[in-house]
């Protein structure tokens, strides 16, 4: 017996039924973590026992946004930052659908930031998986709203002078009823967390820290995906129930991962359903 893992070939795995194999190979770089997150998502769908035909998968633009093109579900590759309002229409147009938004930090937190806080505030029943790779990958590695202070990107050649978002704190403050953060080095925890989020009514948000060695890493002395992943693992500490105010990431500091928020609040649809009766009462008067 050897503990060398068996190489996995696309087309021979248990998640194949959920992938558009005719679109392989995918466009993601070696060492990128997005594929791991897609795998965790698919396993989570199976774990949660969801009917795939009733699952809509919506992405914006960017590296993570390409995930919509690879999953064999009703999948929508929308415009930059607009996955959430598009998903809002789907969710309210047919409340029987399970809605998953899968996109990147630049897409969801910068250009789509307004939609993000308002979707969380409304507590729309959907699960948002936010791949955070600390920069804009698709366009070649520019500053994003999650880029650490001091980090180099192609548009911060002298180091980033802006503070990044504390993402879980922003989402908790906006009203999300489920907030978690994992790295791609926590695939089992991430899978369980996504499965939990998928079946939980309301707005669930999972931040997934994902290495981008080719662009972000190269400019920040971590050009190997494996090194970045080891770094995540070394710096991570699981602290379920941590106060989101205390999970801010600082350069080279501890990365707090875990499930931070899991509360109950009526969803937008729970509240809107009452409108039908109220409107009828008023009309009948």
């Amino acid at each position: 017996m050897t503990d060398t893992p068996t190489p996995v070939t696309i087309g021979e795995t248990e998640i194949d039924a959920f992938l558009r194999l005719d679109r392989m190979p995918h466009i993601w770089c070696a060492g990128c973590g997005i594929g791991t997150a897609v795998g965790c998502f698919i396993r989570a769908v199976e774990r949660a026992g969801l009917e795939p035909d009733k699952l809509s998968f919506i992405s914006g633009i960017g590296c993570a946004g390409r995930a919509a093109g690879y999953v064999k579900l009703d999948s929508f590759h929308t415009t930059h930052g607009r996955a959430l309002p598009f998903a809002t229409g789907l969710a309210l147009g047919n409340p029987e659908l399970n809605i998953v938004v899968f996109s990147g930090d630049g897409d969801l937190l910068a250009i789509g930031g307004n939609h993000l806080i308002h979707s969380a505030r409304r507590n729309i029943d959907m699960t948002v998986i936010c791949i955070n790779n600390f920069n804009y990958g698709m366009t070649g590695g520019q500053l994003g709203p999650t880029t650490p202070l001091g980090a180099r990107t192609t548009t911060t050649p002298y180091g980033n002078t802006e503070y990044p978002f504390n993402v879980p704190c922003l989402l908790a403050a906006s009203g999300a009823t489920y907030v978690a953060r994992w790295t791609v080095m926590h695939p089992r925890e991430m899978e369980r967390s996504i499965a939990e989020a998928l079946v939980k009514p309301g707005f669930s948000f999972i931040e997934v820290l994902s290495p981008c060695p080719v662009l972000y890493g190269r400019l920040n002395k971590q050009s190997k995906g494996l090194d970045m992943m080891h770094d995540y693992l070394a710096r991570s500490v699981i602290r379920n129930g941590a106060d989101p105010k205390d999970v801010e990431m600082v350069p080279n500091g501890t990365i707090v991962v875990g499930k931070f928020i899991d509360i109950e609040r009526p969803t937008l649809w729970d509240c809107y359903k009452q409108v039908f009766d109220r409107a009828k009462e008023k009309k009948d008067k």
Partner: protein
Amino acid sequence: MSENGVLSGTFFMNGDIACAEGAISAGCRFFAGYPITPATEVAERMSERLPHVGGVYIQMEDEIGSMNAILGASWAGVKAMTATSGPGFSLMMENLGLGVMLETPCVLVNIQRAGPSTGLPTLPAQGDIMQARWGSHGSYEIIALVPSSPQEIFDYTIDAFNLSEKYRVPVLVMSDEAVGHMSEKVVIPEISPENLVSRRRPEVPPEEYLPYKADGDLVPPMAIAGDGYRFHVTGLTHDERGYPVMTADAQDSLIRRLVDKIRLNRNDIIKYEEVDVEDAEVVVCAYGITSRIARLAVQQARDDGIRAGLLRLITVWPFAEDRIRELAQQVKSFVVPEINYGQIVLEVERCAAGKANTMLLPHMGGSVHSPHTILKAIKESVQ
């Protein structure tokens, strides 16, 4: 109000309200919007009325969100609409393009006010006509209808939904503040289901379905989310499978079809009304609120012995270019009054191609033309 919540009968209502009722009668069951003068009453009416018919209203965080939400709702299988004005219309342009690219039926109402920028929020203009045609980036064709009364905004909103479902394209209702806020008699008929169009759905099993494979009419059947087709759609240039293909060839065949499905069907889409054009030596080409004033001016010109006629555009896009070309052989000149500094006049001039004179009668917005101004222009044009 009937048992199913849809109105019928004779009412006194303003254009914004009539627009909302037209949408309800057309089967619209989802509205996403953002308050903006002078379109707010459309949203208010929809928020009150949609729950009566089992529909959903949502007020989004901005017009970008509104436009996207109606696209999403349409893919959930629901007829969807938004309504806005100037600045909101500008914000919707990006995802109007997404609607065109994904071939998503939906209706966008613009109750035009004077611009640019914040302009005159409470006063009319027709300044967004070229923006309606060209506002989103890239090459595409769009359908835009222009009502001139509360009755017409009711009627054309239904037409807009029907065209949108038939051709799988966002359809614009380009009204203005004067019509939106004008109250008149509106007759709401009982609409029978055969007068309402619904998008064609796929008849093949999921494994054979190609989301963007079109038949002769160039409009592909549309699956909706949750039907088991597990389709993929993208704003990227795509092939018949809906998969992104980054080549000039893929771009060529997709864009040609998106444009041709409107251009080649233009005789089915284009609508206009003509008054006294048979023997006309001058034709006033007008649309929307301006056409009502033009009608009076044309009548006065006839009374003064001038052979004047009116061509009232109902669809501004696609433009009635074949008809203008024909008329250019007959008339001495076209007079084009519009509440902007020259937009549709450019189309008239292009189609007249030097065979007839074209006279722009601009109005910068904030009010409407006086009949006298148009009459004067008619007289000048035949001298």
